[in-house]
């Protein structure tokens, strides 16, 4: 009989109380953070709660709203997930000891950075942990469109459609990929494309000579000069005034008729109606969109009714492993700020 069992005899309930008190004692050492809620579909899934608990005592938003006085002075950090909780000046007013807002994602559009700066509160994000995951997704969309995966699946399983082994895809090996935006994700896409022995060209506002040399990429300073050379084009740029609407009628005209266009960036990078036009007129062969305007598209939108279009619900960073990594990284930044140490992944205000 183990030592632990001896210690918890004679009553199991006594043992449980003992263990719970041990846990409480270790938790009391941990700083308190405020965050949103658990929801398997749309907020933290339960499996990620232990990740946060390694670092912090968690105050869930609902509990905070019900009992602000109890928690307000102790909260030193806020973890923002999926835009929640929303950071307002009223909220900040109630948290005198708040040191940092850590957003568990790439973007900071949803944060009022000026407000936080004015209050002397640090900000961190997680711009890099999901890069591999999103690059994987970019390639997944490319190959699925190339090999006509939805049609192939239907042929193999739909009883109304004949089993047709002659559904021909587009050859991936040896084809040419144009990457628009050679940032963290774009570079990783290039690495993967080279595994398929694709020829990789890129366009970016900044030339990246070291990355070019490392992977033998070909640079095009002009997007318009890049496009006619490509069998596949993928946009991997952040949304900025320069990239807004960068892919429109003229760009689709410059592409090969056999080209496949993939967007994993932000929907407004593409002039969506002009893309629809290009697909309908067979100016390009096919498109894959992980992002659309709006999200989701209304049921009757033409993009949902074209055989040569694949649409996915903004899931580029949706792997369990990547999500877990993002939560972990956010917690690390939050802890560092609370401890007064250098903050990894700080958003400099």
């Amino acid at each position, binding site marked *: 009989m183990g030592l632990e069992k001896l210690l918890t005899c004679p009553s199991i309930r006594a043992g449980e109380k003992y263990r719970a008190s041990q846990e409480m004692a270790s938790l009391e050492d941990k700083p308190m953070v405020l965050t949103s809620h658990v929801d398997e579909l749309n907020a933290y899934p339960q499996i990620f709660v232990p990740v946060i608990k390694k670092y912090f005592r968690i105050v869930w938003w609902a509990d905070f709203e019900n009992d602000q006085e109890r928690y307000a002075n102790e909260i030193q950090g806020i973890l923002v997930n999926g835009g929640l909780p929303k950071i307002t000046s009223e909220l900040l007013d109630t948290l005198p000891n708040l040191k940092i807002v850590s957003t568990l994602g790439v973007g900071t559009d949803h944060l009022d950075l000026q407000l936080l700066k004015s209050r002397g509160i640090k900000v961190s994000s997680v711009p890099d942990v999901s890069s591999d995951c999103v690059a994987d997704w970019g390639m997944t969309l490319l190959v699925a469109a190339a090999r006509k*995966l939805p049609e192939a699946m239907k042929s193999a399983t739909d009883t109304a459609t004949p089993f047709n082994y002659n*559904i021909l895809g587009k050859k991936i090996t040896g084809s040419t990929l144009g990457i628009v935006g050679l940032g963290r994700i774009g570079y990783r896409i290039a690495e993967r494309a080279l595994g398929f022995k694709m020829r990789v060209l890129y366009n970016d506002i900044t030339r990246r000579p070291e990355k070019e040399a490392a992977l033998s990429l070909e640079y095009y300073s002009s997007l318009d000069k890049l496009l006619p050379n490509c069998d596949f084009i993928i946009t991997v740029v952040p949304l900025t005034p320069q990239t807004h609407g960068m892919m429109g009628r003229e760009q689709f005209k410059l592409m090969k008729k056999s080209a496949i266009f993939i967007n994993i960036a932000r929907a407004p990078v593409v002039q969506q109606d002009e893309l629809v036009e290009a697909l309908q007129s067979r100016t390009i062969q096919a498109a894959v969109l992980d992002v659309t305007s709006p999200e989701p598209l209304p049921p009757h939108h033409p993009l949902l009714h074209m055989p040569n279009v694949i649409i996915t619900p903004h899931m580029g960073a949706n792997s369990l492993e990547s999500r877990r990594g993002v939560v972990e990284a956010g917690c690390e930044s939050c802890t560092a700020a609370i401890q007064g140490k250098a903050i990894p992944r700080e958003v400099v205000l």
Partner: protein
Amino acid sequence: MCFRIIYCCPRLHLQNQKMADNSGNAKPFVLASRPDDEKGIPYYGVDILKKHVNVVWYDDFLQNKEKYAQLIHGIILWVTAPRVDAALLDALPNLKVISNVGAGVNFLDLDLLASRGLNVCNTPRILNETTADMGMTLLLASARRLLEGDQMVRDPNVKWQINFCGRQVSGATLGIVGMGGIGYAVAQRAHAFRMNIFYHNRTRRPQTEEEAVGAQYCATLEELLSQCDFVIIVTPLTAETKGMFGKKQFELMKPSATIINIARGSIIDTEALLEALQNKTIAAAALDVTDPEPLPDHHPLSKLQNVTFTAHMGSATVQTRSNMMALAVQNLLDALSGKPLVNQVI
């Protein structure tokens, strides 16, 4: 166009051959299945055939055996058709060569064909990369639940979930069962995704080849199975590999693992696979080939959300299928003109 491309491209090589034929010899008579874009030889294959041989379509042959029987010197096989049995061989006294468009010849009775003194040719290597591309496509799409995502978008009754997640491919572990030409091409692609690669093969590859893709050899299949997040089958179908994946093998795999088959359907015991998926012994499957093929309508496997299917399309691009047909025709012409055979099975 550089010399190397002319030398390597079967299509261009054939055109040179054709010019040689036109200068003297008549085109040989060759039996083939049927011209049909869905269920037979599609138009691009028919074009290549007609340029180089006198094609006798199978239905025609059945109606006019006396006319054609003595003339036919070769058979072109496209997806196992026409069916070659003793009766057909008896009806073709001057048959010399059976040329398969495709690499796998598991469906042929090679003993029977050898006993009749026939040559059999196939088209290996030329489809390696396109088939490896399909292997990676199935792996990625299955891991990241692409088709489910696409369906979700199209169903107005389904609300999007932020947490609709798949499994990450980068950094995951892949087991390649059968590291021949296609298996190695898969390894090259997986390596670019920083996958950790194990492989099992009858023979071990040279160290330099292993190092180029970061692949570690497993002497037994069992050793490989317990370590992998993804397992891809890339062996030919032989007496040894038939039914290689059954209940025992699925039990050795991780419960989170995915099995991918781009080889032959009957390497997997279909019932065992169904059970393994239903019991969550493994997590998912992606199949370009099944046993039987196709699966009968309403087969329970085809109802599972976590199975991705394609209709035996590993080599299905215009370029590759055209190249395969061109190579098969070249093989046939070589056999008939007594030239040394590059792609000879027997």
